[in-house]
């Protein structure tokens, strides 16, 4: 392996009459942290082994929202090797899976809900948060922060 980067994510949750949200972390479709229920202030740590000069897609796949009750999953803190990367979250996208019936009603009422939402770090819908980056990770980071 060419480069190892250690990530630490602190999640936040807000729930009313609902179960815990679930999250799974993937790198280029490979599972890095298996799906699990998330509690408020829960920390998830994982290490990425990166190849040289490669494009990557880090995904948090957020599930278990029932489409009705309040259940928010958010990223409170995002760090790589102890470096605060919270600012980077403003440039990343969340791809919501809007509840089908609700989404249809919204469109009929003239409300537009885009397929991707930039800078969303609190997710009230199921969906995927995606960070596209390249290795060397720190060269990419330098160019993008």
């Amino acid at each position, binding site marked *: 392996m060419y480069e190892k980067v250690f990530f630490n994510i602190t999640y936040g949750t807000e729930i009313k009459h609902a179960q815990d949200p679930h999250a799974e972390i993937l790198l280029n479709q490979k599972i890095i942290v298996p799906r699990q229920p998330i509690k408020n202030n829960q920390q998830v740590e994982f290490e990425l082994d990166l190849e040289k000069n490669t494009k990557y897609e880090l995904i948090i796949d957020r599930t278990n929202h029932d489409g009705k009750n309040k259940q928010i999953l958010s990223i409170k803190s995002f760090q790589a090797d102890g470096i605060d990367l919270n600012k980077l979250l403003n440039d990343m996208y969340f791809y919501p899976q809007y509840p089908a019936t609700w989404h249809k009603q919204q469109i009929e009422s003239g409300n537009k809900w885009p397929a991707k939402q930039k800078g969303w770090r609190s997710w009230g819908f199921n969906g995927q948060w995606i960070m596209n980056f390249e290795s060397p990770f720190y060269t990419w980071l*330098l160019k993008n922060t």
Partner: protein
Amino acid sequence: MDPKQKYQLFRQRKHFCTAPWNLLYVGVDGTISSCTHGDTMGHLQKHDITEILPNKKFKSLRKEILEDKITDNCRSCLKKENTSSAGNFKGLRNHYNELGIHSSVDYTDVSQFKLSALDLHWSSTCDLKCVTCWAGQSSSIAREQNKPVQHTPTKVADQIIEFVTANQSELKEIYLSGGEPTLIKYNLKLLKQIEKRPDLIIRVNTNMQWKQDNKIVQEILKFPNVLFTCSIDGTGKKFNYIRRGADWNRTLSNIKFLQSHPNVDIRANTVFFVLTAQQLPEIIDYFMEEIGSVDHTINPCSMGQYHLRCRNLSSEIKSLVRETLNNTFEKYKDNLNIAGNLKNCLLELDNEGSSAEYKEYFDNIDILQGSNWRKLYPELT
């Protein structure tokens, strides 16, 4: 170098600046400095460029920067960015650090240098005698005052050209200043040998009085990415007065000419001093809104002309200027460069100063060139 180490230097150190590893700054007499604000690091008339770049002075500066110290060399630049900004404006080192991101130099090695940026002032040759300028930067003023003209000797210039040509692979920016860069023949010789790459920007600081068939201008226009900074200290007759020897109509005609080139961006540069203080918002608006300038820089009055600083205006005029500048600040608050520069102007107005020496200075200029500044600026008399 290790990408993580590079990231930490660039993003986690408070005072890191890449200029000593990447910038070649050549003064009007061929001296090498660490940057426009920095100290002289060596004289090309005494030492070869390959001896200066890894010399004791450079190594010591790089070492102190690596230790995150506020060096004597960098103190004034760092002070400016920390005290006189609009809040987010980070000053000159951020400009060089952006260029340094792409450099292959190992910043942990204090003896290394890899050329990313070139700042050439290598002659004071200029056809104008601007009232804010001085003999050290204008050959016309030097001649008028019987002072020596500052000029890099040909042998030294050839050495620089040879070095830059051989080390141009990572070059991202050439900044041509002076003097008037379109009159400095070394620029033509150098530019002819530089590859016309789209990732290389040519920045030109010009008085805009050149003829459109000027060979240096023509060579500059061959580059895909060019930024002309036009020195503008007024409009119409006021421009002609301040920039002694210049013609406002020629400036307008040359702006039109540059606008017809898609590879050229235009920005303006104004000195904030007693004669521009009141017209500044109008000048900024004219260039930003009508000319389509990409930015506007407002420089403090320096070059020894301290009697021209706005602190010397009357309190009545100061409060009028303060009001219009505050409005202009609000208008351009999202443009960090303009906002930061306007903040500096407002800070200048806060200084105490009551020297009326500028009146005598302009009276003397009127005697020299048969003008009448009192007619153009009656409110200042």
